[in-house]
């Protein structure tokens, strides 16, 4: 269970493709409880990741994660840009010490929480990242964990992020950042890194 340059590139290529394919759906999820741009935001990021990896051709894991982080930070904007960007930046930093997947994902989660100060149950991407990190640390990360975490955001009431402005009306909708994080981890699992 370790990230390598190769599986990380596969992972992100997969993620970028899914985001491009699900762009409209993600923005649609962001419409009732947000401002309808999450898919467009991430699609800019996905395209930027592809371009940056193509251009920089990173030769080690740290460089790859940093390239990904900077592409996200400079192209996504919005809440998710700062959050995903910080997550990958912290993963890049940690990758200088360890390439173990649970440690890297934990570093990413810590970055998200430092930046956005959300805890679990606030209907954000943290509600996907946190159970995924726990499961990875226990060696139990699988698709069911991811799917359950994403689905669980539906019944939560948002108290962080733009969806918190909707108050009670946020209940009954999936959180767009949780759904996109779900795609991220689904693509991670597809690389077989957990095997």
């Amino acid at each position, binding site marked *: 269970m370790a990230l390598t340059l190769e599986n990380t590139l596969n992972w992100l290529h997969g993620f970028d493709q899914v985001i491009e394919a699900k762009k409209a759906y993600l923005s649609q999820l962001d419409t009732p409880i947000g401002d309808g741009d999450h898919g467009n935001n991430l699609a800019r990021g996905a395209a930027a990741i592809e371009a940056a990896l193509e251009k920089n051709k990173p030769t080690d894991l740290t460089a790859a994660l940093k390239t990904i982080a900077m592409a996200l930070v400079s192209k996504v904007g919005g809440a998710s840009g700062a959050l995903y960007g910080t997550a990958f930046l912290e993963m890049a930093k940690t990758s200088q010490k360890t390439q173990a997947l649970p440690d890297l994902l934990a570093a990413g989660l810590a970055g998200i929480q430092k*930046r956005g100060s959300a805890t679990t149950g606030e209907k954000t991407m943290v509600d996907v990242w946190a159970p995924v990190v726990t499961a990875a640390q226990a060696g139990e990360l699988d698709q069911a964990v991811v799917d359950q975490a994403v689905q669980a955001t539906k019944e939560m009431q948002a108290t962080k992020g733009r969806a918190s402005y909707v108050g009670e009306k946020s209940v009954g909708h999936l959180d767009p950042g949780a759904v996109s994080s779900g795609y991220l981890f689904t693509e991670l699992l597809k690389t077989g890194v957990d095997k």
Partner: protein
Amino acid sequence: MKKIMNDPENIVPEMVAGLVQAYPQHLKQLPDTEALVRHDEASMAGKVGVISGGGSGHEPAHAGFVGPGMLSAAVAGQVFTSPTPDQIYAAIKAADHGKGVFMIIKNYSGDVMNFDMAKDLAEMDDIAVKSIVVDDDIAVENSTFTQGRRGVAGTIFMHKVIGAAADQGASLDELATLAQKVKPNIKTIAVALSGATVPEVGKPGFILADDEIEYGVGIHGEPGYRKEKMQPANALASELLNRLKAEFHYQAGDHFALLVNGMGATPLMEQYVFTHNVMDQLAADKVNIDFTKVGNNLTSLDMAGVSLTLFKLADSKWLQALQYPVDTIAWTQK
């Protein structure tokens, strides 16, 4: 959706290009960014820089308020999306003239986080940065169960007061203190007649029926607190003023500044009628309006509707700051 644009993905860079082409005497674009800085470098010398920005779609905010007496620079994100930290950082560097930079942020998670990241970057380069997060929208409950209230049109009063103080030589700490004092005195509430269409999305963020309005909508189409049948202007004014009155508990003899802000598709004619009803009702309550501004100042793309801001002039210096000379595209005053 019919919009005067080319590729929706390029709408922000093309808009910024148009701004700079039309108003070179006001603005300069920072290379490789959508950040715009004052053309008049000399007007910033020896003063604290003041920057603001956020997602695009709120024009003339924020670039329209860049100039002597107001902002030093503004950063334009994608439509309704916070600008990225690297761009904000570029604006900070351009605005810094050795005295540090003050950032005026509207309370949206994206904005707060990206401006915070930019501040981290600036501090690594030893540029002193302080900020205020404006949260004037009273439509949203101010409880611990939300991200707090949203920052909306009242923010331009913050730009004006801080801009005037900076121009008069206030230090970064003084600006931070002033902003904290001013902040709870600015409150805004809106009513929408139609939703805004983000160019890349292609359909309205929300849809109101032909005879329906929604109170309390945010500047990105965030839901408000009530939908109902269309009302006469006078009734709209009462509804919004009652909300503001419940916040300020204003009384005869109090002094306020007033901003009636068009959301983008509402003609000035309607804004003036609404202003008339608002000012008559305030006059009936014997509240003094010492300063008034009406027009499209902080819009929400093609949304129809208005927002109403009251700024309690608890300190008479704040009125002087509003009246202080300013020379920008959207707010010029001798």
